[in-house]
């Protein structure tokens, strides 16, 4: 017998039944707290996304935290250099679980126009695991918002990703 069947009829319209896991996923996906950390050009577009016109607050993602201990989303916005890689990794490790990473812009994805430079890391996924890649140089704020909504889908339905992996 399913749980749904033992709920009295009076309550059926007032009570939602879900698992604890599902509830957590739902809560997490709707209030991501990004870390305030911009590396370069993309950071300006990230600020624009949070400012008046694009208004990230519509989706509940506007609580930019300056401390990694309070954040659960790391938007790597910009070029990552080998000199910056250790501090970046430390920031990631300081964030509490569960944590998510968005690689914003071509540089964060695979080095972008600087891929063959002597000082640039060709993609942040060499240093930390990445959940969503957003292409563009720099991506427009709309693209960042779309990326965050994709992350929301991923948090809610992790099984989608597992299917793709097979």
């Amino acid at each position, binding site marked *: 017998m399913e749980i749904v069947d033992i709920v009295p009829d009076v309550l059926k319209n007032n009570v939602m039944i879900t698992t604890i896991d599902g509830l957590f996923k739902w809560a997490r996906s709707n209030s991501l707290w990004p870390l*305030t950390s911009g*590396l370069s050009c993309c950071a*300006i577009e990230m600020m*624009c996304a949070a*400012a008046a016109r694009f208004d990230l607050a519509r989706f509940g993602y506007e609580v930019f935290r300056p401390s990694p201990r309070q954040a659960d989303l790391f938007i790597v916005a*910009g070029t990552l*250099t080998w000199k910056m890689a250790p501090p970046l990794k430390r920031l990631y490790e300081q964030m509490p679980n569960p944590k998510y990473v968005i690689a914003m812009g071509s540089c964060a994805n695979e080095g972008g126009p600087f891929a063959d430079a002597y000082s640039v890391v060709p993609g942040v996924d060499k240093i930390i695991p990445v959940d969503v890649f957003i292409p563009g140089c*720099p991506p427009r704020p709309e693209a960042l918002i779309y990326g965050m909504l994709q992350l929301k889908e991923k948090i809610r339905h992790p099984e989608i990703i597992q299917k793709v992996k097979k």
Partner: protein
Amino acid sequence: MIKTETYQLSMGPVHPSTHGVLQVLLTLDGEKVVDSVPCMGYLHRGIEKLMEARTYFQCLPYTDRLDYVSAMNNNFSYCHAVEKLAAIDIPEKAQYLRVIMAELNRIASHMIFIGSLAVDIGATTGMIYPFRDRERILDIFNELCGARMTYSYIRIGGVRSDLSSAIVDMINKFLADLPSMLDEYNNLLTGNEIFQHRLKGTSLLSGEQARRLGITGPMLRASGIDYDLRKDNTYSSYDNFEFSVPLGKNGDNWDRYIVRVKEISESAKIIRQALDGIPDGQITAKVPKVLRPPKGEIYDTTEGPRGEVGYHIVSDGSAKPYRIHIRRPSFINLQALNILCKGYLVGDVVVAMSTIDPILGEVDC
């Protein structure tokens, strides 16, 4: 007398008010700053080396990514240097279009300055307004060349495209609304007593110190020295326009703020004159598909929103530059950080850094 021991505090490379990935090593005596050393390089992308492997045309997009909040001014500076090296004459109309776009970008850049200064001081509302108004300029650029930040609109030999009447309307509307935007900032920030107390009389930089340290741009002018390359080494068509160079008196944070706010209206003045006086003609000169400047060397400067942007280009007669070195104003201006911070409180370091207005893409190159 009781003496306390000094200690070191590392600010950055990830700090909400370092404008990117700048690290400042502070030596503190209690709350007082004894010494501050900027450590940069966390965004060093090796642009100069990359340019050596690319043709003169392919180098252009890299200049966008140097000072990414005023890409037009960097495009302008680079193209101006290459054209001087290759002796290319630019049509009058292209000169006017360049000036209009460079000045619009200067306004956008100063708006970012106002916004980030406000947010660094803790006035988050103060950030929203300049960012909202900056979108208007980005809309114009978007219409013009399809990009919001990295334009590559100013090309070697001229500009990429002509102004359509829709764009002219947009610029005119923006210029008409600009005074009310500035009023809004003045009501919100300039007239705010707390804001004034934070800025006035802190982080003094005398004219002599600024001159000795090679400071350029609004920061130098805030210290009372009248040096603006648009006037003192006129390039392009700047000598056709009437505008004044705002100067500060004391060289404190307040002056550095006010000078930039005043520069916004001066830039608007230039744009208005340039829009009225656009001559007819071509928008690009004839430039060969493969540009091979003659063997030689050149150092050429223009005035960016942060100071003197200089390109030193060495050509060996081939299609690729033998060596390019870029004088980035933010990089040199950061040398003043220690003078600005010494003897003040930790809270003032944030303000001083903000009024230097460094862009780390440019500092680290």
